[in-house]
C-alpha cells in the first residue's frame, strides 16, 4: 500500500479545482453589471465571478448552521427545540440546494430525462414543506 504524501493531496486538490472550473456555468454570471458595484463590495467580485450562486447559497446555509452551533455551545441548549429547528432549516436548505444542483446539471447522466423546470418545482415544494415544519417546531 503506497503511503500518501503531501504531493498526492496537492494533486487531488488541483484535480477537484479544475473539475469544478469546468462545470457549466449556468449560474455564474451575477444579476447586475459589475461596474455598478461600489468599492466596498470589490472583495466579493472574484467570489461572484468564480463560484456559482447555488454554491454560495449552500455555503451560506452551512455557515449559518455553524454559527448556531457555536452559539449553543456558548449559551447552552435551553430551548432545545428552537436550536434543532434552526439547525434543521439550515441543513435542509443546504440539502435541497445540493439536490437541485445535481438535477439541473446537464452532464449528470442519471438525471438526463428530468427537465430542469421539474427539478426546480420539486425544489420549491420541498422548501415550502421544510419551512412549514420549521415554523411549527420553532416554538
Amino acid at each position: 500500500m503506497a503511503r500518501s504524501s503531501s504531493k498526492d493531496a496537492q494533486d487531488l486538490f488541483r484535480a477537484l479545482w479544475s473539475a469544478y472550473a469546468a462545470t457549466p456555468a449556468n449560474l455564474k454570471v451575477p444579476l447586475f453589471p459589475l461596474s455598478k458595484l461600489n468599492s466596498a463590495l470589490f472583495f466579493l467580485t472574484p467570489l461572484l465571478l468564480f463560484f456559482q450562486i447555488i454554491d454560495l447559497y449552500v455555503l451560506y446555509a452551512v455557515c449559518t448552521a455553524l454559527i448556531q452551533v457555536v452559539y449553543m455551545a456558548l449559551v447552552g441548549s435551553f430551548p432545545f427545540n428552537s436550536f434543532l429547528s434552526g439547525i434543521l432549516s439550515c441543513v435542509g436548505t443546504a440539502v435541497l440546494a445540493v439536490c437541485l444542483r445535481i438535477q439541473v446539471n446537464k452532464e449528470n447522466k442519471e438525471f438526463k430525462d428530468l427537465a430542469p423546470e421539474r427539478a426546480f418545482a420539486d425544489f420549491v415544494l420541498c422548501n415550502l414543506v421544510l419551512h412549514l415544519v420549521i415554523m411549527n417546531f420553532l416554538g
Partner: protein
Amino acid sequence: MSKLILLFLALIPLLCSSFSPETPSDRRVLVLLDDFAVKSSHSLFFNSLKSRGFDLHFHLADDPKIALQRYGQYLYDALILFSPTIERFGGSVDAASILDFVDSGHDLIVAADSNASDLIREIATECGVDFDEDPAAMVVDHSGYAVSATEGDHTLIASDDFIKSDVILGSKKIEAILFQGIGHSLNPTNSLVLKVLSASPSAFSANPKSKVTSPPSLTGSSISLVSVIQARNNARILISGSLSMFSNRFFRSGVQKAGSPTKHEKSGNEQFLNELSKWVFHERGHLKAVNVQHHKVGEANEPAIYRIIDNLEYSVEIYEWSGTSWEPYVADDVQVQFYMMSPYVLKTLSTDGKGHYFTSFKVPDVYGVFQFKVEYEKLGYTSLSLSKQIPVRPFRHNEYERFIPAAYPYYGAAFSMMAGFFIFTAVHLYNK
C-alpha cells in the same frame, strides 16, 4: 318555681365570668392549705391576688369535700397548693386529678418546704422538676446567706440570680429574695421548664443538722429555687421550694446578702411573687393570633390556589392579653414559613405597631401543596402554632413566555433561510 328561675338567673353571670379563651385570665382559684394559720401568715400574698380580681377559695388539703371537677366541668380555673406536708388529699383530689387539671390547660402553683411530703414531690416530678431525694435536705449557702439577727445555720439564703425575662418578672429591678427551703434540679433536655431563681454557685443541698459525709447531689447554680413550666397547651406551673418565701414575715423584712455591704429595707419577695403570679395566671405573656389572611399582590380576596412565581402577601394579627383587654403585641421576630417538607421561604414579618403583621414574597418555582406556618416560641410567651394549607400549580400552557430571548438567533436563522430561499429562487428563475 319562680324561686328556682330566680336562682338560675342569678347563676348566669357566674358562668360568664369563668375562664375562657376570650378572657384567659383565671378567675376562681382553689387554695389548699395545711392549716388555716397559713391564710393569715401569708395574707399579703393572698390580698394582692384578691385585689387583682381573683376569687380565692380556701380549704384544708385533707378536707373531704374538695373537688376539682364535677360532672366533667372544672370548678376552678387555677390551683394553689400551699400544703407541703400533705400525704393524701381529701375529697376527689389526688396527684392524677391534679395532673389532669393541668393537662386541661389550667394553672398551678406548688410550694414545697423542708418537710415536703412524697405526694408533693411526686407532683413536682410529673411536672418536670426533681426535688432533692434526701427528705431532710435543705439548701444551705455559707457565702450567700441572708444576714439576720440570730446566728442561723445558713439555710436562710438571699438570692438574686433571676432569669432574664421581662415578660416573666416585669421590667423593674427586683432586690434579693429571701428563701428558706429545699432545692430542685431541672433536666437540661427539658425545653419546657425554666429556672426563674437559681441558687448561687456556693450553695448546696444537704441536711443542715448533720455533718455532710458525702458530696451533695445538688450543688451550685444548677440548684433551682423557683421554677416555672409552660406546658405545650400553654398551662403555666410555678414550683417553689419554700413556702415561707410567700409569707408576710419575708415580705416585710429587709435583706442583706452576706458579704455585701448594702442592706435593702424590703426584700424583693413581694415584687417577685406578684410579678411571677401575674405571669402564671396569664395576665402577661399570653398571645393570640387571629385573622390570618393571604392574597395575591393587587387583589383582595383569598385565592384557592396559587401559581408558581406569583407575588403574594400574608398577614396575621397578634394580640397580647394585658389582664383586662387584648393589646397589640409588638415584636420584630415573628416569622412565617412557606413550608412543604422543609421551608422554601422564611420571612420575618414586619409590624405596624398595632398588632398587624404582614409580609410579601414570591412563590417558589416548585409546585405542590404548601403550608403557611407561623411557629412562634419565645421565652415566657405562649407558643403560637398557625398553619394554613394552600396548593401551588405550575404554569398553564398559555402562561409561558411567548418568545424566548435566548432563542432569538435560532428564530433569526430560520427566517434568514426563508429569505435566502426567496432570493435564490428569484435569481435562479430570472437568470439567463
